[in-house]
């Protein structure tokens, strides 16, 4: 009888907990943290994100403040240019939208794919150009980019032409769970140090794989293009543990690469 009551209470607790975590997650998504700031004496730029900036696909929310009267600047057109400064060279990284106007939520939003972490090799700076009524101001914001625990960005040289370097960023699932998960990736190539265009027209194969047991999962949907170099599908996990998301990417029916994202969840 004790066990029964115990189990019932556990079940209730689990439910309670589950409903709580749902709420916490939504709160966290809303709950942006300031990851970097910078100013040029006249205007200040505050960079917000849900986590520390990491190697991979980052959604940045920017607030611009007029320092003279401490008011938000809401009517600007903002342009972004991230730069990695290394010993001998500098390079940029993929950005989905180079310019932005104010979003409904009151921020300027940019999707940036940092391709390497800050560290001994070099440091990141993001240059914002804020244009209001024809006047352009520039603010340089130093940012720190960390290498995430689970790889969110994979780069490879095309297996087909052996020269083009591609970058695949894993956008979803952010916090994978047992069951059905959205899978979204975006793909870019390095055209030059400063030019990292998104790649359209790719086709995908997807195989989730549990290496410790050597099995997959059924009913997955390989990502298909949704525009802007983004590809969306579904990935299914039948249990917790170590999963691989094995992708095969084809361009004009030639395999260009087979990146594997690994995820662990309880």
């Amino acid at each position, binding site marked *: *009888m004790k*066990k*029964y009551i115990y*189990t019932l209470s556990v*079940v209730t607790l689990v*439910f309670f907990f*589950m409903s709580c975590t749902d709420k916490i997650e939504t709160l966290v998504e809303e709950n942006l943290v300031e990851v970097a700031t910078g100013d040029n004496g006249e205007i200040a730029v505050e960079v917000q994100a849900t986590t520390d900036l990491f190697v991979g696909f980052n959604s940045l929310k920017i607030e611009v403040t007029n320092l003279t009267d401490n008011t938000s600047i809401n009517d600007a057109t903002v342009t972004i240019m991230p730069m990695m400064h290394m010993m001998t060279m500098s390079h940029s990284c993929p950005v989905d939208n180079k310019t932005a106007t104010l979003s409904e939520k009151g921020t300027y939003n940019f999707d940036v794919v940092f391709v390497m972490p800050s560290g001994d090799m070099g440091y990141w700076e993001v240059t914002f150009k804020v244009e209001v009524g024809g006047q352009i101001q520039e603010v340089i914001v130093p940012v720190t980019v960390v290498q995430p625990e689970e790889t969110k960005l994979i780069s490879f040289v095309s297996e087909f032409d052996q020269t083009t370097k591609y970058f695949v960023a894993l956008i979803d699932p952010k916090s994978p*769970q*047992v*069951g*059905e998960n959205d899978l979204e990736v975006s793909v870019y190539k390095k055209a030059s140090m400063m030019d990292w265009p998104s790649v359209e027209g790719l086709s995908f194969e997807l195989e989730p794989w*549990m*290496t*410790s*047991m*050597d*099995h*997959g*999962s*059924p*009913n997955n949907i390989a990502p298909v293009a949704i525009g802007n170099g983004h590809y969306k599908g579904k990935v*299914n*996990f*039948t*249990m*917790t*543990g*170590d999963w691989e998301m094995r992708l095969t990417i084809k361009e004009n029916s030639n395999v260009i690469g087979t990146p594997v994202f690994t995820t*662990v969840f*309880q």
Partner: protein
Amino acid sequence: MKLRITLFLLVGLYGSVFSQEETVYKAWQDSIKNPDYIMKNILYLDEMDVVESQYESNNPLVAQVRKDKSMATDDLLHCLPGVNMMRRGNFASEPILRGLSSERYVVSIDGMRLFGACTDKMDPASSYIEPNNLANIDINLGNDEAIDGASTGGCVSFNLKTPKFNANKRVFARVGMKYNTVAKGFDQLVDLNLNKNNLAIRSSFVHRKAQNYKAGGGNEVRYSQFEKYNYSFAMSYRLPHDQLLSFTFLGDDAIDVGYPALPMDVSFAKAKMFSLNYYRMNLGKLKEVEIKAYHNFVDHAMDDTKRDAADVPMHMDMPGNTYTSGFYAQANLLDSLKAKIEYYNTFAHAEMTMYPDVGSPMYMLTYPDVVRNSASISLDYNKIFLKRNLLKMGFRYEKAATFIISDFGEQQLNVFNMSGKDPKKMDLINANVSISRKIKKSTELKLTTSYGQRLPTTSEQFGFYLYNRQNGYDFVGDPDIKKEGAWQNQLMAVWHKKKIRTHVAVFHYQFHDYIMGIYASNYSNMTIGAKGVMFYENTGKASLMGGEWSLMSDITKTTHLMSTATYSYGYDFENDPLPLIPPLKITNSISQKWKGFMIQPEVIWSSAQNNISAKFGELSTKSFLLMNLRLYKTFQLKQGAIEMSTGIENIADTNYREHFDWGNIPRLGRNFFMNLSWRMK
């Protein structure tokens, strides 16, 4: 008053009682009450329920199960014609009724529903009781008693012993023990009944412990050990106007049980059952009014830590539990109509955590917190007409809803584009009509037509990657699976002269929406080494036919012969043989009285079974011949009596397996057993 109470306790065990004076009817009743009457397959086991003269049966089969007080439930059921036992080890066999396994029949313990908690069917409900607790076992082969429950294959009712009121026997006690050589098994049992004035108490205790058994030829079957404790306490209190209030508790703890045919063993399997019962003999026009409320739970944990490391590709924890509560109320009206309303609620949870050598543990729900609610109403009507005929009709309507309450489980189902959160509702109808006719004094005929429907089991509806060792596939349930139904026709004939009694039953079952696992080639297995995935589906038609025959003959006054033969044949929607079909099996036993001893030689022959279900992973089974010899003797003492049963089973040490045994594991080799029990006068 006392007499009447004792009587009604007796009567309760015999089913409904009729007041008509018709001689034919009395003859029917008498034949049903006759403990040797195997047509209805009731075995009376409580010597306090049956008068001594009848209890000392000449029927070798009945004698065997009554004399061997330490017999296990498995062995006992195995004795009944039409019943076979599916073995996965030396413990907790699953009864097979005419080739149909536990999905297709209803098991009730004193009218209570109890559901095993193991996803691999390691714990059929029958494993949680002991014959020592049983007043009788009532088996309906085929679904000719709709009132027993919604099934397509029949019903096994275990009825528990009740505390007895007997002014002349204030205290009754029995102590017994049994040893067998084949598994070095040692069993003990204690049984106690006390009564004073309006209160009666019964308590029992059984302990069994066995090592690995030796198969025919002497090879030890590893991981076939077991140990179990079974304990019960029951209390009855008499109220005025022939009312009785009872409380029953039954506990069963099995520990360290090996399953050689499965990849895992069991560290423990525990069940606790509680029930509260109210009984009233007469209430206006109603008779035998009974109301029962009950609760039971099962806690089960599989274990692979005792296996050789080479046999365990990955360590796993697989616990499971079920909780079931319910009540029923039943009464007889006008002696010929019995009505019952019943409700139960059951919950099943089972999970699996796998621990790889490298990497994180993997967790999944194999029973995703499945809840089932079921309410039913049933009627049973008996009528004598034209003196020689007995009409019996039964009808049952059940409404059931099944759903899951785990979000995690729902996410798992989403992988298959399925959902279990919304209740899956089902209406089930079971009906039966039978006509029995007495042709002359010596011949009885009974024709039964029935229609039955059953609910899918938890595994069939919500099982998630359940590995079936027999065919090597992972099984996945279908939340939207439909109910299964079956039309059944049975013809039974009993012919008896003074010294001879023979009984023949032939049956034909026609299933629709027969539920079985179907291989899905586009899915990959989860279990390491499995061949693929099978989904439970309603496959369409399946047929099963066969028969049982028995002969009892009093060769001389002291020599009695009993022969039984059973045969079945069945095929599925693709005309492939159904699994678990018993081959032709013939049992001959003789009981010979000699100087106070009863000697019982027995020869069992089974034909080979080559009509096998490849889908089920069955292997063909060779023909075998077994010989057993048993000896019974009762020593009367001043203070009670000592009953002895001893013998040799499988005398020739034949290495054999029955067709229902998993994993090509042979059954027990030559076994000497000795059972002694002392009972009070």
